[in-house]
């Protein structure tokens, strides 16, 4: 009884503190993710205050948070959108992978974290935060801009790339060797292909399985299906997150819309717990040791993302200012970088310092991203003005 009371008390305190942090973030128009991470760091091992009793719940809740994050991401897209996004932006998408995964991989190798560490950190620096990007585009009134579809299709490509990347990472982390690794990768690709075909042809059928007019029934069936698929995917080494993502894609039409509306508050709750749990498992004393690397990665990958957006927008005939805006919109890293790092850390296949580096990096990028999107226009304009007399 004692421990239950303590766990409730701790959980309540953590959630309330997160609410306060979210309010502070909202006041400055920034993403709450970095503050959640900071909250986790403050409450965890070696932090200001140690929360022990609630961590057991935090672990499973964090896993559910990842499943919901990816399920909602899948619900946002329809299968035709994914296919046409892939077709339109594959070249920019490939450049995106080369430019933004390489810095992470190189730094991990320099720090002696081996190939597994390199693949993990490559994913962390590669994937932009579609959540932060979409919010920034809306807040800055850029939804109607010509470069916005370019930005969105790069994000779509990244999310699809993650559906292939996560199974690779899961296999590597499980340390099952090349042959078994290839087998599970082939399995993952097969599953993704099958799901896309099902979603394209029979999306209505999948939707009708989970759909219900009763809100309660709908919620339970939806959540149950998501966790079942996630568990199955996890057992097949395809990664729970990818299973949830694919389910989200398969659910379509009005069912997808009402599902997203219904699950959004749950996602916010469990995802917040996931970010805190990641912070809890990260030793803040290790951050100063890797802070230099985090800053270096932040600087390099800000430039490489801007380059990616510039290239993608140029191909669609967008002007210079629009190209710069497209690049800056992609700079933010957030939820999915933490999902990747969290996956690696929870298995214990990478050193604890990687968690510290990923935390510091995402803290920087989640704050830097929206700022970059805001200041890019005045900066480019003033550069053009300074360059103009020299040319003319």
């Amino acid at each position, binding site marked *: 009884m004692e421990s239950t009371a303590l766990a409730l008390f701790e959980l309540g305190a953590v959630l309330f503190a997160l609410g306060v942090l979210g309010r502070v973030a909202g006041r400055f128009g920034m993403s709450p993710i970095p503050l959640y991470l900071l909250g986790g760091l403050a409450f965890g091992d070696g932090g200001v205050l140690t929360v022990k009793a609630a961590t057991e719940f935090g672990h499973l809740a964090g896993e559910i948070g990842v499943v919901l994050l990816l399920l909602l991401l899948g619900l946002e897209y329809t299968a035709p959108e994914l296919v046409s996004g892939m077709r339109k932006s594959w070249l920019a998408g490939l450049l995106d992978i080369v430019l933004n995964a390489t810095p992470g991989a190189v730094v991990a190798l320099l720090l002696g974290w081996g190939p597994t560490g390199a693949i993990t950190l490559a994913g962390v620096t590669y994937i932009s935060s579609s959540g932060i990007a979409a919010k920034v585009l809306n807040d800055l009134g850029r*939804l109607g801009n010509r470069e916005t579809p370019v930005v969105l299709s790069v994000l779509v490509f990244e999310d699809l790339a993650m559906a292939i990347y996560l199974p690779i990472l899961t296999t590597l982390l499980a340390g099952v060797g090349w042959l078994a690794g290839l087998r599970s990768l082939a399995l993952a690709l097969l599953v993704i292909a099958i799901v896309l075909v099902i979603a394209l042809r029979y999306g209505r059928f999948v939707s009708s399985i989970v759909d219900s007019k009763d809100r309660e029934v709908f919620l339970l069936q939806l959540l149950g299906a998501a966790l079942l698929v996630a568990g199955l995917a996890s057992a097949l080494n395809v990664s729970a997150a990818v299973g949830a993502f694919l389910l989200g894609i398969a659910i379509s039409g009005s069912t997808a819309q009402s599902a997203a509306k219904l699950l959004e508050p749950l996602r916010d709750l469990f995802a917040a717990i996931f970010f805190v749990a990641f912070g809890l498992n990260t030793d803040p004393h290790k951050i100063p040791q890797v802070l230099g690397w985090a800053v270096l990665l932040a600087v390099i990958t800000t430039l490489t993302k801007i380059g990616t957006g510039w290239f993608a927008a140029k191909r669609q005939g967008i*002007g210079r200012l629009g190209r710069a805006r497209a690049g800056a919109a992609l700079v933010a890293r957030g939820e999915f970088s933490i999902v990747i790092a969290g996956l690696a850390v929870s298995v214990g296949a990478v050193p604890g310092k990687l968690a510290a580096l990923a935390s510091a990096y995402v803290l920087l990028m989640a704050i830097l991203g929206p700022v970059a999107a805001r200041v890019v226009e005045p900066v480019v304009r003033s550069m053009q003005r300074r360059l103009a007399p020299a040319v003319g």
Partner: protein
Amino acid sequence: MNVDVTQLPGIGVRKDFEARSGRRIGVVAHRDGGIDLIVSKHDDLDDCAAQVPLTVDEAAVLANLLGAPQLVEKLKDDHRDLPGITTRQLPIGDESPYSGRALGDTRMRTRTKASIVAVMRAGQIYPSPGPDFVLVAGDLLVVVGTPQGLDEALEILTGG
């Protein structure tokens, strides 16, 4: 006129066209049913000077405001040979006693000699509405009559 339709994955659809002034004008229709009015800047066509979120009602009213003057102009043109007859657009406001009631309830023709020739709603024209046509706040009535009759009609529609 060519309206460009662009998918915005995860958000909705953008529909816009380039006006003769050179600026792009259009809407972003969100998945969840919301609609934003967008107007591009004049010096940077890629960028938007305004992105104004509109409710369904507001979008309908805006569509009426943009569509009704053309109809009224055309009708005025038709009546040019009949002196003393004019056309005006009269709104059904939120306060109007006839919002939610049948057009026949206004007894417009009997009371003012003016006739309601069309109703504009959500950018669509409903020509020659019958007495059973139910009016809704936000509708614009296109009314033909003498200036005096039209003044009386406005009073009826706003005050009863």
